[in-house]
């Protein structure tokens, strides 16, 4: 192939590609210039790619592959290929592997975390059951009651964890299908608030009589339930939890769940929706939290093409906000 044809062909490719002759970059396509900088053509190839593994690969007489890190942003992972062309020039291409690697890592982390979360209550259950089987401890009524209470609590925890994990995987399975059933969020919020009973004060206010979104009723109920549940758990004991709904003229619905608890420190806010992330691990566990509640909310809202956000001020309380697109015929 003539050289002009080669470069014309490379210019069409979307992955970053470079031609290198005698250690000098003689051509870089647009993706390569965007990735490595507009200055690289005419420079020594090591100015463009200085990672030791990249340098070693380019110096090899026969070409090959290497995995290098940090080409675009620190920690990014790239698969680099180097082919020797007729005439001795080298074709260097780069492929971003960061997403694949991080998905694999996230999956491995999730499995590790989930097993850890399941193992802890199971270890407690087995331990107390073994102790109760011992005649001395099992016959003392007070001890027995106390141990049975712990076993019951830990078993419940495993149960709710398994339920949450199943919810998450069900939501994941359908996440690419946007749900379309008409759901009235105002009625749904009142219904969920009612589930928490007369004793807790969950107040619902809305600026519209009804607000219809296209959605999955049971999932949306679960999202609101999780938020109210969190607000009651982490709010001020005996404090108020408010659900406010605004179905303004913009075509979006805003639902906010506000508590007047002690708030969440700013460094925790970005990570709250990570699975098993807890701002206060011991408190969450003692309240029976699974560490999955907000992850579930986030997944549900994303499936509904909406946004989920938490804002908080220490000492003043926390507000969780859901934004959802209103159904077309509402307007």
């Amino acid at each position: 192939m003539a050289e002009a044809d080669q470069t014309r062909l490379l210019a069409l490719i979307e992955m970053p590609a470079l031609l290198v002759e005698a250690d000098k970059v003689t051509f870089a396509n647009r993706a390569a210039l965007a990735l490595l900088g507009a200055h690289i053509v005419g420079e020594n190839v090591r100015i463009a790619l200085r990672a030791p593994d990249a340098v070693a690969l380019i110096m090899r007489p026969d070409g090959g592959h290497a995995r290098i890190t940090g080409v675009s942003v620190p920690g990014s992972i790239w698969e680099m290929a180097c082919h020797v062309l007729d005439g001795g020039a080298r074709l260097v291409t780069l492929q971003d592997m960061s997403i694949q690697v991080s998905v694999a890592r996230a999956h491995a982390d999730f499995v590790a975390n989930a097993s850890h979360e399941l193992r802890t209550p199971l270890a407690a259950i087995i331990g107390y059951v073994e102790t109760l089987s011992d005649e001395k401890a099992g016959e003392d009524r007070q001890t027995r009651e106390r141990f049975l209470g712990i076993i019951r609590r830990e078993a419940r925890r495993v149960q709710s964890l398994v339920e949450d994990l199943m919810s998450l995987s069900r939501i994941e399975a359908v996440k690419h299908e946007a749900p379309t059933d008409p759901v009235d969020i105002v009625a749904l919020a009142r219904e969920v608030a009612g589930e928490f009973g007369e004793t807790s004060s969950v107040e619902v206010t809305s600026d519209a009589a009804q607000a219809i979104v296209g959605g999955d009723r049971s999932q949306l109920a679960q999202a609101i339930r999780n938020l109210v549940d969190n607000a009651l758990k982490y709010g001020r004991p005996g404090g108020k939890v408010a659900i406010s709904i605004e179905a303004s003229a913009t075509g979006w619905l805003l639902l906010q769940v506000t508590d007047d608890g002690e708030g969440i420190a700013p460094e925790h806010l970005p990570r709250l929706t990570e699975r098993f992330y807890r701002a206060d691990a011991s408190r969450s566990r003692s309240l029976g939290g699974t560490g999955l509640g907000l992850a579930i909310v986030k997944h549900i809202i994303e499936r509904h093409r909406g946004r989920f956000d938490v804002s908080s001020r220490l000492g003043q309380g926390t507000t969780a906000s859901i934004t959802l697109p209103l159904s077309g015929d509402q307007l």
Partner: protein
Amino acid sequence: MVTSSTPQFQSEIGQLRGLIAEMGGLAEVAITDAIDALVRHDEDLAHTVVAGDAKLDALEAEVDRLAVRIIALRAPMADDLRDVIAALKISGVIERIGDYAKNIAKRVGEIDDRRKFEPLTLIPVMAGIAQSMVRDVLNAYGARDATLAIEVINRDEKVDNFYDSIFRNLVAHMMENPSTISTAAQLLFVARNLERIGDHATNVAEMVYFAATGLYYSERGNPGGLEKVI
């Protein structure tokens, strides 16, 4: 660029710049690996970092030889001369950065394996800032980007402030937990090494600024110093 030189000469300058970039790439990896080794208490990785420093020394010697050869045989002028002088000085500084990474790696064996040791969690954050300075200054060198170089110089204050706060934190920790004094003292040296890496990244940035503009950074904005020195 003002150059009046042959393609052969340009290729030698390119070779020189390539060597500097290669040294930079090695130094970056050395810092990353040294901090990884420290945090994970991985003595094998620490040994790799220590052993890898020889390569940086060899490259520095190669830069010296090539630079002297270019000056002796080609008598470079203007931008070319600045490139060669900057390369000579920068290679020395990057070699020092590699030494600091090596020094951090050498301490891994001296530090007890306590992942929960609270001050240890501050070190990677500080290392992240120092690493980003090294990374960006090498990008600035490759792109001859004086603006990015100035930005790196300004970031040094962040590393210095972090160093002060780690210092106070570690001293307080030592007073409260005398049993951790030897580990905490090692971490003081690590923090000190990171602070020095930040300083040296700043030195490189000043030379990148010099090579790109012909001005000494300290004389920028000073009316008397505005004339190009070469």
